[in-house]
């Protein structure tokens, strides 16, 4: 589905690089409620995904839990999207110390293989930002 694969591509590329101790990269697919298990034992959790924000394709921004709940309001349902999982984690007091979503604006989300030019730019920019934060231990 074109640029819907931005998050997967970032995860695959980052997983192939040397990472600092204690850092793990997981391509979690549509894991939903399983996020609660996945982030157990970690202090910081960064999600990376394509998010329609009405910005320039290929651009990115960090969203925190409050931003995400504004973007995707509503209760917990079968989709168990990040907002529902966040609400449940908050209610359970099971949020990691730091939670952020690196949201990348997709270009083309349609039935096609591979990323658009804007999607590829978004992947490169997201990787650079993640490397920067990992290197400076932010």
């Amino acid at each position: 589905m074109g640029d819907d694969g931005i998050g997967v591509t970032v995860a695959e590329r980052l997983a192939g690089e040397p990472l600092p101790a204690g850092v793990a990269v997981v391509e979690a697919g549509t894991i939903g409620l399983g996020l609660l298990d996945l982030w157990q034992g970690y202090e910081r959790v960064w999600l990376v995904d394509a998010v329609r924000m009405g910005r320039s394709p290929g651009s990115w921004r960090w969203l925190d839990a409050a931003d995400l709940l504004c973007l995707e309001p509503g209760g917990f349902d079968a989709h168990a999207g990040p907002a529902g999982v966040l609400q449940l984690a908050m209610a359970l007091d099971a949020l990691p110390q730091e939670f952020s979503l690196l949201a990348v604006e997709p270009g083309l989300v349609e039935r096609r293989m591979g990323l658009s030019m804007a999607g590829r730019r978004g992947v490169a920019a997201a990787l650079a930002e993640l490397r920067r934060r990992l290197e400076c231990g932010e």
Partner: protein
Amino acid sequence: MKIAVQHLARIEGHANLVIDSARGTLRELRLEIVESPRFFEAMLKGKHYTEVAPIAARICGICSNSHTLVSLCATEQALGIEVSEQTRILRLLLAHGEILQSHLLQLFFLAIPDYYGVSSILPLVRSERALVGHALQLKKLANDICRIVGGRPVHPVTPTVGGFLRLPEAAELQGLRRDLVAALPDLEASVDIFAALDYPDFERETEYFSLRGDGDYPIFGRRLVSSAGVDCAVADYQQVIEEYLVPHSNAKFARLSGESFMVGALARLRNNFDHLSPMATQVAAALEVGPTTCNPYRILAARLVEVVHGVERAIHLIDDLLLAGLAPEELPTPKGPGWGAAAIEAPRGLLFHAYRYAADGRIEQADCVIPTAQNLANIEADLRALVPQLLSSGREELTRQCEKLIRAYDPCVSCSTHLLTVDFA
């Protein structure tokens, strides 16, 4: 009175319910499936057999393992590939893991709020902390089964045509077995919770359609049976299931012997009660669900019986694997092009995939029949029988009971809308 419930909550995908009644008579009822069609069969055309299962798995984010496994089986049927006993057991274990994942999500996170009078699981975190904690523990265990066998909790990466690309470590399976045994007390607590629920008193006989197990409660199988006398080979499914279009749905509806039929946990349980594990049989008695149950609200109870059966069965499957010892296997090579059909009992019921392959190993024709699409006509028929009984109860209660009934089926709307009017000509 007109009631329009836009975007039914706590189901997978987007559906609306429209009820129109006048002077105590139901005039119209529609379960509108408004999710856009997704044309997966068209996407599969021309794909090489090595790519088909990972693409087919994307039909669903909840039952991706079932789509993967049935897709592999259909491909193997078409290409004349036999799998080993080790592969067969690992696939069964993975399928049980997914049934547990899906059933536990539906029971504790989507259905139970209806019975506690709240709109979602979130208020229960404070008032019923033990219940939620206990549900999360069980859910994690189900995820662990899928992760250890399938490589990750959803959209598995290890199963492939003819076998597995990576095998679980014996130590992982031993740990899983330990956790499954430790979960049994949690399951007893679950039974107490669901036995205490006040299931609405509504019954309607229908046709119950499932695989018939060959010495075991069915996951895979070759024989289809229904309570109205259908008894045929899986390969003949297109001859017994009639799919049809209705104007208000982007998913096809389906009929069998009569106007509607049910697939899923209750249909499986009714048709295969004699194959339940001993513990699951006891739980069925405690939950008052059995081979004659025709109250669709009690699909929840049937689901919990299957959870207990699945945990027991998973323990035995792990024992079989550990006893035999896991060994890497060479993947068999295809014998040639052809047509193959397979069925699996996915969490929501019978799931069929059938493919025709060309000599170059690429798909010429694909057909997928999804459990929810088979259940849609039955849900509407239940609602048509239920609503007249509730017309005097007021708009709010009527809406609440209808939503509860729909949720009992755990419809997966996104799955059901993948196949509208696809012509390969």
